[in-house]
């Protein structure tokens, strides 16, 4: 258990005993990266709803955090499960494919909109949030090799768009 995990573990244990102030400190500390990931992955309409679902589940299961993984990793796993639950309830397939529009100027959001949801998640975690490939593979429920190829494919698509030649 690292020092940072230890601090989060102590806060989570207090939260498990019903200490709302301790949990508010955890929310303050971790909302920024979680919402950033969700914003990039599931889009602005759903990001905050899924983040709230995740924090609610983290509050309910506060006693289950054991400090072995980073709190942010544990929380992102919860958020991803919340996202999948929502998709199941809406009876949509897990991987949302190409949004299928062609923006005039290609910014990062436009590029991400052209990737599948799992490609977006893999790319954002590994290239933006500094997750290791095994961590991201576990979160997304993919074999390590598949995760690596998903990241490579996503990056290649973005690179092609970035260079101006949008050829999937």
């Amino acid at each position: 258990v690292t020092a940072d995990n230890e601090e989060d573990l102590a806060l989570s244990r207090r939260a498990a005993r019903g200490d709302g102030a301790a949990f508010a400190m955890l929310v303050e500390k971790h909302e920024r990266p979680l919402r950033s990931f969700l914003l990039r992955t599931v889009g602005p309409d759903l990001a905050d709803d899924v983040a709230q679902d995740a924090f609610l589940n983290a509050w309910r299961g506060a006693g289950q955090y054991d400090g072995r993984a980073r709190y942010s990793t544990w929380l992102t796993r919860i958020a991803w499960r919340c996202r999948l639950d929502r998709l199941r309830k809406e009876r949509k397939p897990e991987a949302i494919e190409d949004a299928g529009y062609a923006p005039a100027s290609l910014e990062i959001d436009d590029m991400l909109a052209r990737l599948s949801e799992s490609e977006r998640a893999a790319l954002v975690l590994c290239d933006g949030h500094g997750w290791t490939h095994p961590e991201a593979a576990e979160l997304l429920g993919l074999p390590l090799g598949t995760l690596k190829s998903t990241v490579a494919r996503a990056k290649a698509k973005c690179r092609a768009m970035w260079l101006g030649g949008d050829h999937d």
Partner: protein
Amino acid sequence: LEAIMTDEFERFLNESLAPAERLPDRRFVAAVQARIALDERLRAERRALAAGFGKQLIGLGAVAAAVWVLALAAPVASSISEYPAPSLAFSLTGFALLVALLVRAGGGAKIAPDF
């Protein structure tokens, strides 16, 4: 040139995908706290409702058993067989009053987390 472009693209990707530097969003924290408070209240109400329902079932069962035992006693049994309709009406009225009393008594406790 290819290497320069690749480096530039990697930098663009890393910078674009990294979480933006900003202060904690207090409004979001408050929204999460409000949602947790609501969830806790609803769960407490559900627990209280279930506990009250259980108590009411036990109470009704006990009363029904007592009435059954009473009805088996010789003087009561003879009255029932002699006047079945008034006995049934009396029993049903008593039962309805008992149910109304239990329903009124069964109020749920409300618990709020300490935010």
